């Protein structure tokens, strides 16, 4: 059962109509990245927001997805759509394999383990000749086609592909949130011991969360690779990507299905606009300002934007109640 189905449908419809109204390439570019990152945030949210297991390694799944579809397309002419699925399955398998040993760890020990796994995968890709190692892969350029997921004259198809995935993911997340699994995951987040004592198989549920999350992240990775048409291990597997995912979800509101979208809507335009306006100097002013803004948000709005909305709502409600009392 999905609560607030209507809100979600309206939200996605609005995002779908926006690029038709504002027809600027830079806006479309921001929108594609924004939706991809929001999808990643949703995926991360399942593991960290719902189940409370902090992952610093989601870039690994993102990268695996990007590599799977790119390698299949580049070496074997296989459509990225199939590659996307292969990437998702591969990432889910990797998640399954690493979940067992890492989920025995708690708190920061787990977080550092995910970071370590991502770094190992990065090193492997850097020295793996079959996937062109550190050189990276430039995807073959073909005419606009849905089958090859390449569009050069307009960015609109990319927006709708990414939005399609995002729509499925956000529905899935809000379904999970209100399902038995969601409640189990939240129980694990609140207290691991209590969850275990009432008979929840914590390892299985945490692993399931990780596998779903990895699958989604990999799909987003494939779309990203098809969008930028060039990939290398340093841009995909870096800690920076993993942290960016953490950053936007925490910024928007962790553990909330709207959180990643809100966070991405603020973070991605901000970083793109500062990059375009100030990045040309090559002296890092854009990232300096970006870093500063992140600090300010963390210091003054620790519960994320959604926390701010909640606060305002409660205030409005209180004011309303006050009025009713005054009337009677």
């Amino acid at each position: 059962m999905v609560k607030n189905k209507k809100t979600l449908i309206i939200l996605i419809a609005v995002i779908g109509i926006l690029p038709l109204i504002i027809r600027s390439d830079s806006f479309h570019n921001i929108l594609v990245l924004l939706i991809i990152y929001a999808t990643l945030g949703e995926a991360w949210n399942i593991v960290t927001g719902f189940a409370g297991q902090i992952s610093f390694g989601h870039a690994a799944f993102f990268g695996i997805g990007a590599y799977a579809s790119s390698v299949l397309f580049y070496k074997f002419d296989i459509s990225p759509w199939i590659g996307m699925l292969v990437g998702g399955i591969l990432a889910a398998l990797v998640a399954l394999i690493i979940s067992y040993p890492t989920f025995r760890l708690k708190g920061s020990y787990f977080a550092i383990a995910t970071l370590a796994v991502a770094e190992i995968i990065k090193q492997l890709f850097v020295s793996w000749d079959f996937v062109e190692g550190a050189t990276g892969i430039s995807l073959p350029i073909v005419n606009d086609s849905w089958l090859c997921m390449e569009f050069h004259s307009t960015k609109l198809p990319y927006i709708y592909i990414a939005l399609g995935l995002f729509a499925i993911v956000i529905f899935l997340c809000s379904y999970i949130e209100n399902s038995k699994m969601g409640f189990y995951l939240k129980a694990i987040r609140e207290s691991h011991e209590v969850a275990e004592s009432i008979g929840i198989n914590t390892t299985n549920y945490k692993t399931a969360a990780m596998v779903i999350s990895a699958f989604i992240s990999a799909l987003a990775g494939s779309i990203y690779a098809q969008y930028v048409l060039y990939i290398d291990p340093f841009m995909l597997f870096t800690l920076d990507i993993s942290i960016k995912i953490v950053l936007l979800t925490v910024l928007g509101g962790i553990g909330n299905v709207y959180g990643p979208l809100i966070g991405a809507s603020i973070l991605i335009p901000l970083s793109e606009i500062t990059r375009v306006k100030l990045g040309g100097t090559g002296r890092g002013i854009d990232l300096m300002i970006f870093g500063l803004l992140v600090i300010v948000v963390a210091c003054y709005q620790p519960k994320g934007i959604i926390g701010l909305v909640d606060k305002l709502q409660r205030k409005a409600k209180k004011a309303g109640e006050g009025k009713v009392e005054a009337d009677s």
Partner: protein
Amino acid sequence: MLGQIIINGILMGFIYALVAVGLTLTWGVMDITNFAHGELLMLGMYSSFWMFQLYSVDPLLSIPISAAILFILGVIVYKLIIKKVLGGNGLTALLATFGLSMFLKNLAQFLWTPNYRYINGAMVTDNKIVIGNIILGMPQVVAAIGSIIMTLVVIRFMNNTKTGKAIQATALNRSTASLMGIDTDKIYAITFGLSGACVGVAGALMSSFFPIYPQSGSLYSIIAFVIVALGGFGNIKGALFAGLIIGLTEAIGGYFLGTQFKYAIVFLIYLIVIQVRPKGLFGW
């Protein structure tokens, strides 16, 4: 040949250990994952570089100055940022320190360009110690000795001074410590300053044989995370031993499997050890 590699690994291990000691202090005492730790190290390296470049102060002599600058910087970071995010959940603090790391990295790039810089002609440069067929680079030996001394100073400070004991008490239980009349706010500021001083010393020691550039701290901060977790959060002795293990792993693994895999092996060792000791070597 292997002897040479083991010695190199041990020397590097002590330097890693000092960087990790700084990190484990803030992590263990305040439960703050400081993503800007590597950037503080980078600033420590730059401060020694500029003192050498502008006032021709040898990096060895600038150790106390770097330590002092980074101590003050640590306190400022605490007062301006960390203090505000202490109450929230761990991820908020992480966000703040990640933002700080981005800010500092790019500030360094803005002020000093992304160029690699080296200190040429320092006291220790180009000197070697030859024992049998093992050749030891003087800068590495001095850096290792300096790191050992600083680590011992920190351990002594934590165990034998009133402030050190107050830090430990605060780490155990903040509210109880404050009931006992400890000014926990001041203790946190000192802890952060001390953490800064550690990388100030490490930075000064490393500046004579490592390239200095805005990203130079990033790699060490990831390795330091692994070392801290391997040793057990907040455990200084753990950080020292884990540092040595990581230094050795990196050197020996890099020798047998190729240098491109040396960091992969470092992370792999963490994953293996943590299976046996899920809370680090010295954690409980």
